[in-house]
């Protein structure tokens, strides 16, 4: 049982912020992660989905992510980009607070190795959408949210796991809504956990409009991506670990296209 709870706590927050899978923290339990992410690329996916060359675009981001068990079936989740610095070579650089996200995750059902959950997240416009002539924003500038349902299963006698989730992304300010999805397969080998991640956003409608088009920073209308790649966790001690992920991109629109490296340090109880 203790091993099961330990694995569950490690599973929290493995994927993108506020998308840690359908396993809830126990009441009073928590997971918190400080992360750094870097992207450097000279490719832009246009809103048509074509990849074109641009001056080098870079993004550095430092963020915090947390999950906290409120009751046996309810967990609070949230994340905040404390600083997001983006730059386009020979144009400009800008840094600022990112958008914050707060939400709740309900454990709907648990049966044997299976678990079902639903999550609602509200995104607050705490970032600055005007930075760098609005081409280097640190946030979308509008209220957003998503409702997601997910299913997970424990594999290989508790030494592995898998989950899938999908839901509806709501965007304010006339930005178009879309489908959000994610999946993960992972396996423990001693103090190391190895993962394969997939996640993405697909707007329902991608026809051009005269709305603000966003930029390489990825907050604009019709932003589309499918991110996939490996992840690695090294347990340093009880409830303490290091995490590294590589996010490769495919099926992109209206966003800089490249590989993001993420490094994180987490604590959990």
């Amino acid at each position, binding site marked *: 049982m203790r091993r099961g709870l330990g694995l569950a706590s490690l599973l929290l927050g493995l994927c993108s912020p506020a998308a840690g899978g359908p396993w809830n923290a126990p009441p009073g339990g928590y997971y918190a992660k400080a992360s750094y992410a870097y992207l450097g690329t000279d490719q832009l996916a*246009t809103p048509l989905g*074509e990849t074109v060359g641009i*001056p080098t675009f870079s993004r550095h981001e430092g963020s915090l992510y947390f999950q906290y068990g409120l009751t046996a079936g309810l967990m609070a989740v949230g994340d905040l980009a404390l600083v997001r610095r983006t730059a386009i070579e020979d*144009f400009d650089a800008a840094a600022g607070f990112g958008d914050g996200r707060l939400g709740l995750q309900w454990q709907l059902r648990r049966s044997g190795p299976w678990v079902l959950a639903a999550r609602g997240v509200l995104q607050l416009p705490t970032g600055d959408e005007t930075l760098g002539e609005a*081409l280097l924003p640190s946030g979308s500038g509008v209220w957003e949210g998503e409702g997601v349902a997910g299913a997970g299963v424990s594999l290989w006698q508790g030494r592995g796991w898998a989950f899938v989730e999908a839901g509806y992304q709501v965007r304010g300010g006339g930005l178009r809504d879309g489908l959000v999805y994610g999946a993960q397969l992972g396996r423990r080998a001693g103090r190391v956990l190895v993962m394969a991640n997939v996640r993405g956003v697909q707007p329902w409608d991608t026809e051009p409009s*005269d709305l603000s*088009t966003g930029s390489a920073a990825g907050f604009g209308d019709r932003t589309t991506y499918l991110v996939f790649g490996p992840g690695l966790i090294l347990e340093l001690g009880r409830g303490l670990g290091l995490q590294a992920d590589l996010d490769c991109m495919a099926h992109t629109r209206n966003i800089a296209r490249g590989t993001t490296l993420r490094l994180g340090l987490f604590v959990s109880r």
Partner: protein
Amino acid sequence: MPTPTPDPGPTVLRETTFQSANGYFTEGGAAIVREQGGHHLLLRSSFRTSQSGALEVRLCGQTQCGPGDLNLGDIKAYSGRQQYPLGDDAGQYRFVVIWCRAVNLPFGFGELS
């Protein structure tokens, strides 16, 4: 008493209708106009483009602008009638281009004829 010289009014030398490029949005008309002895590029009241930063109005030999093309400055508004002064009739340029200088991409263009 001298007889006032009648204002000949603007003369449209060449004009075009914008089309969108790279999935961004641009529509409406533009014209190179001679008026009162000078020339200017007129974006007509039907003009609209994507609300993006770092947009410029350029006259270019191709839809992908490069060195030697004419930069008329930052776009004054994302929609509606606006004018950009020209030194001459700019006859050597084939295209009016709405150009994003940050990523070096056209958001829209029109071939002058």
